[in-house]
């Protein structure tokens, strides 16, 4: 289901026009970013949790040039599906 199909499906489910659903989806994603930060996770019942994790800095080596590089720390978002989501997927199989 690519993005186009998703928007179509969503617009049907939400009862909005395509254009509106697109705009709202964007707003949704921005809201998601705003809610999530290093200390806050977002849990959606029946779906899963989005959490932000820190990746500490480390020394990486370029395998071809053998040059050492210091990779800075960064934040990463992870998704943990809830049990019901997992079940609904495996139930399909």
């Amino acid at each position, binding site marked *: *289901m*690519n*993005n186009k*199909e*998703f928007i179509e*499906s*969503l617009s049907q*489910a*939400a*009862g*909005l026009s395509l254009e509106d659903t697109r*705009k*709202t*989806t*964007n*707003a*949704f*994603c*921005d*809201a*998601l*970013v*705003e*809610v*999530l*930060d*290093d*200390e*806050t*996770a*977002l*849990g*959606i019942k*029946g*779906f*899963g949790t989005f959490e932000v994790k*820190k990746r*500490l*800095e*480390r*020394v990486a080596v370029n395998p071809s040039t053998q*040059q*050492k*590089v*210091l*990779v*800075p*720390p*960064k*934040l990463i*978002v992870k*998704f943990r*599906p809830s049990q019901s*989501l*997992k079940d*609904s*997927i*495996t139930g*399909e*199989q």
Partner: protein
Amino acid sequence: MGKKNLADLISVVKGLVPEMSDSADAFARAFFDTILKGLARDHYVKVKGLGTFKVIEVSPRESIDVNTGNRIEISGHSKITFTPDASFKDAINKPFAHLQSVVLNDDTDVAQMMLFDNAQVEKIHDEISGFSANAEAGNNQAYTAAAAERGHANGSMDDASDARFDLDENSSAAVTESPDGINGSSDETTENNYEKQDTDMTNWHKQTLDEDTLQNTQKSEGAGTLAKDETPVKASKSEENEAHSEEKSENTAEKVEVTSEGNEQTQQAEQADAVAEDKTLEKEEKFSEGHGADAAKKSAHTARGKFLYVLAIIATATVFFAAGYYVAYYHNSSERANAPVTASSAMQRGGENVSKVVGKAKPASVKPVEKKQADVRAIPAKTDSAKAVKRNLKPVMPVMKGDAYMIVGQKGVHEMRSGENVTRIAKKEYGSKDCAKYIIRYNNIENADLVTIGTKLKLPELAPVDHYEKQ
């Protein structure tokens, strides 16, 4: 770690898109349901601006039961994965967005590097959000500069300087300064740090670099430079040093035997040493008297001074030994280098080496004797040998293709000692490492790397091969 739920998300959405307020709830629910449906149907959902949800099949694999240690099979199953897309990733990483990878110089000691731990990352995080007004470029430079500093500086820290940091009143200030240094220092200085690796940034960095220069100069020069090195270190500290060094000279007249080169400043260092040793117990009193910084600097300074003094002594001793050895080696090798030149000169030398001279060279003219004293160390010129050797020598062992020399006899024996190898002996005896192969051949050594201690190597007599009459 706080956890928000859908309601919180919806409220934020309402804030962003006020016109959708009433349908926001339904929209949110529909959003996640659609993803669920799409995942169930196609095992793949892509949402632009968020990411991709996929269902992945995991094949069964063997594993170990953690409790019993028995073999266990983890059955195949499917799992749901989420990969954020680029815009979402960047948006999440916004607090650290300005940081970029830094290429480390080869000399950075990775093991010694102080990689940020969790607490420090949080601290940076907080400071960054506070300093968000700063130019992004400045922040990144500061980070890269700090990274370069950490890699370089920590590799050169020594125990004495650590001691100083512990004792030095400034140290606490310096440590708290460094995070500021990451963010707040001026662009010029951080650029300088990164490019040239000479520092002006904070006292902490300055002191560390002085350590570095001190280490290097100590090793190459003698104790005389101790004074010179001490000066910049002293200069970098506060003015209190001058006051307390005067103090020292009063106190230690009777305690110290000055054995240094009579340099005033090395005297002070030594006096400081003595003072430190005698007064370590009194240190605490000094602190309370308000001379805290003084005493700390004094004892730390002298601990380091003592170390440097010892280092200077060692350096001078090494220099003398090296010089002496070099002179002896030079003298010896100038004699030995002549060995392959002529067999006749070997005859001339007579009993210098135990030898079985096979060569039938006639007692030569004065020339070879003079040659012995000459400054010939490298593989000698062939012209001289031509006159003396021509048609007089026959090789004892067959000459291989590509040989520059032929083995015409034996000139001595060498017993292998610990740490020696055939190549080194060749260089010593013949002036060239290439002659090792002749030694190996003459002694029928199978593996030159495995010649044991105590092995007596027969040293072949070598003569250049040009003049060999090919039969």
